[in-house]
């Protein structure tokens, strides 16, 4: 997964060159244009453009359109933006590179196409990165998600030494061997835009072309959620809520309704993340909680797969 490490930029001349030929007037793509361009590009490649999942998740991978749809034999192609929450990465808006809430752009294609590298390189060209002028590298990065019971092999894509994308061939999901194999491409949108717009601070990103900055949209949220995640979340209640969600997920799984069960599992996972950032989970407990979530995912994966045949 993309770590929430965003890189800042310094020189101006760089940004100028990032302009695509059609948009000569504009200096660079705004945050919202970047999203629109990626959506347009992947739609043209036949991907269904979906909307974000309406439950807090740690990454685009958790959207059922990726986790569950990567299981089974039916072909599937999708792209969507997913707000991602990592409570312990919050910095009260003080750090120019770290957020507890940020956006991922997620692409999932099953089976993975032969020319996926080409498709990917053209996608970054569509947002203004001309790969021929840059040092684009596919650097080993194997991925594992203990809570999803998932693993994959792939790379992080570096552009001039900076990680801009995560590129993964899923091998296992919810403890089930994938066949056929899906390929997942995850762009960290803030980081990518900081590169494109040549910004040092994520809050200085231009959201649109009319001068609205990322700060106006999210600064207060970062401050308040950091306070919630680190100081005010009621941990006694959260521990109880976790247990309740787990029970609910189990009973729904037993009743073979996989999608609502998966929702409970996602909620439990987010509650766990908050507890973790509140620092009330010991090392040993941590492993235990992760195993509990994994068990839920595995059983839900099985039920979902059965429902597909």
């Amino acid at each position, binding site marked *: 997964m993309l770590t929430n490490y965003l890189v800042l930029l310094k020189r101006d001349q760089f940004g100028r060159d990032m302009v695509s030929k059609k948009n000569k007037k504009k200096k660079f793509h705004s945050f919202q244009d970047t999203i629109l361009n990626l959506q347009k590009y992947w739609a043209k490649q036949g991907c269904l453009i979906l909307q974000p999942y309406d439950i807090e998740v740690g990454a685009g991978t958790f959207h059922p359109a990726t986790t569950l749809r990567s299981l089974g034999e039916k072909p599937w192609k999708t792209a969507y933006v997913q707000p991602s929450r990592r409570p312990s990465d919050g910095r009260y808006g003080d750090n120019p590179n770290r957020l507890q809430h940020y956006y991922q752009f997620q692409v999932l294609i099953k089976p993975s196409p*032969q020319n996926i590298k080409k498709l990917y*390189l053209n996608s970054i060209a569509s947002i203004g990165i001309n790969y021929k002028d840059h040092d684009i590298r596919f650097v080993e990065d194997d991925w594992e998600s203990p809570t999803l019971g998932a693993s994959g092999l792939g790379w992080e894509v570096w552009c001039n030494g900076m990680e801009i994308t995560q590129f993964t061939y899923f091998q296992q999901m919810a403890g089930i061997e994938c066949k056929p*194999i899906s390929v997942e491409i995850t762009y960290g949108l803030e980081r990518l835009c900081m590169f494109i717009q040549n910004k040092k601070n994520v809050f200085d990103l231009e959201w649109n072309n009319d001068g609205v900055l990322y700060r106006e949209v999210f600064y207060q949220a970062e401050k308040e959620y950091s306070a919630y995640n680190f100081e005010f979340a009621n941990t006694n209640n959260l521990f109880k809520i976790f247990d309740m969600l787990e029970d609910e997920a189990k009973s729904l799984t037993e009743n073979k309704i996989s999608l609502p069960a998966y929702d409970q599992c996602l909620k439990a996972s987010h509650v766990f993340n908050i507890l973790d950032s509140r620092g009330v989970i010991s090392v040993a407990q941590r492993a235990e909680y992760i195993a509990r979530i994994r068990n839920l995912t595995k059983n839900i994966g099985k039920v979902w797969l059965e429902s597909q045949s």
Partner: protein
Amino acid sequence: MSEFFLELFSEEIPAKLQVNARKNIYDNLKKFFDENEVKIKGQIKVFSTPNRLVVYIEKIAKSINKKSEEIRGPSIKAPEQAIEGFMRSNNVKKNQIYKKTTDKGDFYFYKNPSKKINTIELIRENIPNILNKISWNKSMKWGNHDLYWGRPLKSILTVFDGKKIDYDFYHLKSSNNTYIDKDFEEKTKKFNNFKSYNSYFKSIGIIIDQDKRKSFIKNELLKLSNKKNLKINFNEKLLDEITNIVEKPKILLCEFDKRFLEVPKEIIIITMQNHQKYFPTFDKKEKITNNFFVVADVKDKEGFVKDGNERVVEARLSDAEFFWKRNRSNNLVKQVSKLKDISYFQGLGSYFDKVQRIRKLSAFISDELLISKEKMEIASSVCKVDLMSDLVGEFPELQGVMGGYFAESQGFDNEISLAISEHYLPIGMEGRTPKKLYSIALSLSDKIDSLVGFFGINLKPTSSKDPYALRRMAISLIRLIIENNINIKIRDLISYSCVTYKEQSFEFDVKLLNNELSEFIFERLKNYMKEKEIRYDIIESSTSITTIDEILKIFKKSSVLSKNIKKDYGLNTIAIYKRCLNIVNSEINEKDEINSSPDPGLFKNDFEKNLYKKINDIRKYFSSAGREENYLESLKTLSGAKLYVDNFFDNVVVNDDDPIIKKNRLELLKMLCKSFENYFNFSKIEA
């Protein structure tokens, strides 16, 4: 002779997998050609770039002659069906088989004629199987295919003597084409030999041969750094890794803002090497500079690559700088109580608990090492505080080191700062061992506390698993003692450590723990000695009679004996001991109790008296040697008894008619053995 050339084109294969695949495919092919007696002049060469795995044999026999072979069929008594089956399977007629008598009976035989087989056919038939046998440490599937490979395999080029070899490998068909652009698999190009392939890629800047690529990178780096008066500490691992992640290396000299040089250099180096795969540079005085080298895989026409990499480093360093400024002024002492919130391990308390135990243990050690107890206690109390810093969160490998920096910038005594900085060292067999007493004491206390704790809650390593790295910890402990010449009684430390746990109400079975942990440390000591190439029989004997309190002594004696065992004083010492021991053992009477105290009044001649005198000299030597014992000197002293022993055996009959005289002589020999055992039990040593 013919040429064989194979290229496997794939998406980017990680460095380690490439190295492994090169070796694997070489071994498999070598074995195959050897088994089939295919002659090869020169070497099988295997090259790789991230996308291309290439095999090239310049001269391989065009064909092989399969010698005529006699094939045994069924017994002559076998039913007709079996005989017909034999003929059918070898495709021969009745008149081509014959009977022959062997020592197992009479059988039908068939002699197949010698046969010429074309190598190209042999390869065509077997290559899919050979490719299938490449064992990847980690492999994957993709799309709808069944093949497992390091990363998706896209095409196979196979050429023999200018002609392509056709075969199927899973969903792929071999050809004499390959993709020429690694990202856009569109344009292909035909190659009928390796030379044209290699020179084509050379013309577009790609170096296929990894050895050439490596020396190119190294030479360029040297050239550029010399020009700029910079030094690079070549890290072979990094150089190898970089060699395997680029195909057309271009070296860029980059720089970052000088203000970041205020950040501890370890952070700068880790950021450069581990995270970004850059080469940091140093000036003549070994001080780190703000210049660094990037090995890019593209020509930096527009200067974007240089700019981009500089930005990445500055972003990372400014993050680190932000944390450094924030963390270093954060008072270490005031933070100690916050360690209560961090669990060390379930059943072993918090880090605060651990630090309290280490403080007591290291104070105890400070008395033994004659260093300031007060300083020791300060160092122990704050040594784990850096675990709560942002920097150690970001750079976990810098635990301790960061604590040292914080202590230094907050004005702690130098010895204290250094002790904090070094208290995780040494890390197993690797790397350096602290040399300063405060560092040694703190490291020892930390390790003893961990070992005792984990053994106490019964989380001992098993033969295959050691999740808490306790073996490594024990090795570190042994190295601290041996490499620093420290005389310290480990059993006392273990006992005292148990007391510190008990004071916090962690109750362990102290006796069991002592036994198990001592045995565990002993086993590690044996391993350590093995690494130091001490002979196995010496290791076994050295550890059989004493306790782990004697680690230093055991090691020193064993290594002196191991080094000198073939010299005359080594050989003599062992020979004397064994000769005497053998006589005592064979002549000893069950009723008699030999307690190595001969009665000088019973000696009948000077040979006995002289030997007795010599043994007493040896005893005196050992009792005066004490802690300062020089083990080579001891060995020489022992071998000095040779003349007296020889004279004794040449002139004295041990087996005297008078049982009292006989017993007295056995007492004398036993006394010698006992004295020798002051050094070592030589009985199981092979000279």
